[in-house]
């Protein structure tokens, strides 16, 4: 049993499908007059965000509130002066407030691991994005979105394009999609692929056009212009030309293929406005799906006496009562 969700690799195939199936049902809550379920009443979920992210924080907040949990938002910017004291002392304060779950976004890779294994808190730790390491709920909502449009992800071809080196979204997606049996291809200039990427459970390519052929889903990653100043690529123009998704490239995709982006987008850099707003783009839907998926994660971790994730699934007959 796993009490924390720190990495997409924490989830077995059964776990991942359980989350997605549960999210399927919870998505219906959004269409109800009363968008609430009583399930986590009395539980406290803390959003511990050390990095600005209105979108993800609101998504987790909506998810927790729809399950009737109490939500506490803690926005703490780590400064170089306070260093690690901020995380530990903050955690001890949260424990004193009785947090059942801490959703943490932090600029340092591994911060959720540190929080989960430190002994400072007793609740579940959910990684909402740590440095350039992982963002498991993003991968889950991406998989959920793909499944809605493509059906089972077994054997599906997914192309992920962009700054893989610095992308936690890429890492989590590669791990989760591999678990779900999809075939992933990473596309980036050589400077933006990490050393050792050949050992990841996916293919790599420097050629975007080749990697779009036959793709069922294309995921564009945000590229930061600061990387240009560190000589990862020479200019925005060259980056767009070689690695950007425009309408011409989109037209080479199969009919049914979808275009995704974790947001926020650099319209004109990695993705053109035309593509972002086209019917193929499921970018807005990804955001909506984020709430359902995060509801599923919170429910499965906190809804019962113990986490429902990380166990071998045995079909257990529930006798009617």
């Amino acid at each position: 049993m796993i009490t924390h969700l720190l990495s997409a690799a924490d989830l077995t195939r059964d776990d991942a499908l359980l989350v997605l199936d549960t999210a399927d049902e919870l998505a219906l809550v959004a269409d109800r007059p009363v968008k609430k379920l009583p399930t986590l009443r009395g539980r406290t979920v803390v959003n511990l965000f050390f990095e600005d992210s209105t979108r993800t924080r609101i998504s987790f907040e909506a998810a927790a509130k729809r399950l009737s949990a109490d939500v506490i938002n803690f926005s703490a910017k780590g400064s170089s002066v306070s260093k690690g004291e901020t995380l530990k002392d903050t955690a001890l304060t949260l424990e004193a407030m009785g947090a059942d779950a801490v959703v943490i976004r932090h600029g340092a890779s591994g911060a959720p691991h540190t929080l989960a294994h430190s002994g400072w808190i007793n609740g579940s730790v959910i990684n909402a994005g740590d440095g350039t390491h992982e963002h498991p709920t993003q991968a889950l909502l991406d998989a959920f979105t793909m499944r809605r449009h493509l059906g089972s992800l077994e054997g599906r071809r997914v192309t992920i394009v962009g700054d893989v080196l610095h992308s936690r979204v890429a890492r989590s997606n590669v791990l989760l999609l591999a678990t779900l049996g999809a075939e992933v291809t990473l596309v980036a200039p050589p400077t933006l692929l990490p050393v050792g990427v050949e050992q990841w459970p996916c293919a790599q390519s420097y050629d975007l056009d080749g990697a779009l052929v036959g793709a069922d889903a294309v995921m564009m990653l945000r590229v930061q212009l600061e990387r240009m100043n560190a000589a990862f690529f020479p200019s925005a123009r060259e980056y767009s030309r070689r690695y950007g998704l425009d309408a011409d490239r989109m037209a080479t995709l199969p009919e049914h293929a979808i275009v995704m982006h974790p947001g926020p987008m650099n319209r004109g850099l990695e993705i053109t406005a035309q593509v972002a707003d086209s019917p193929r783009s499921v970018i807005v839907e990804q955001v909506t799906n984020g709430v359902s998926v995060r509801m599923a994660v919170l429910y499965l971790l906190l809804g019962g006496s113990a986490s429902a994730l990380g166990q071998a699934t045995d079909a257990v007959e529930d006798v009617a009562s």
Partner: protein
Amino acid sequence: MTTSTGEPAPQMRAVLEAEDIQRALTRIAHEVLERNRGSDALVLLGIPTRGVPLAHRLAERIGSVEGAHVPCGSLDITMYRDDLRLKPARGLERTELPPEGIDDAVVVLVDDVLYSGRTIRAALDALGDLGRPRAVQLAVLVDRGHRELPIRADYVGKNLPTSQRETVRVLLHELDGRDAVLLSNGERP
């Protein structure tokens, strides 16, 4: 047949066979129509797992008697259970409301076994968040007694007094390949 612990399973005997179940459902269908003076505004919602095929069978029977379509769906009550914290979180079942919705409808909840009444309590809470029915009625295949809440069924296939050591199992051919209601005697052979 042995249990997962390797012990021989308690002896199960059939207290209802397939024909008994057919007749009970037919009777309930007529009772529903009689009580509600027709099938107008009726919506049947089965409680997963076995309430759902039962609801569909009932809807079919009512529909064929009246010559009208009776909306039918399912209502998963997992999130409203009062015993969630006793076990790890369970996977959810399907909730599917018919397109007509339930506002101002007469909702007939359908379940296989009525026991403590807690499932129905949860179903009423779930319904409350989904809309405002004109009325809610309850049809069950088996009422085995031992209510822990003030809940009663409007339509009962069979009243089956049981002791709490006994187990009632409903089999339906949609899920189990045959129709039967089994009762264990709670004793080891």
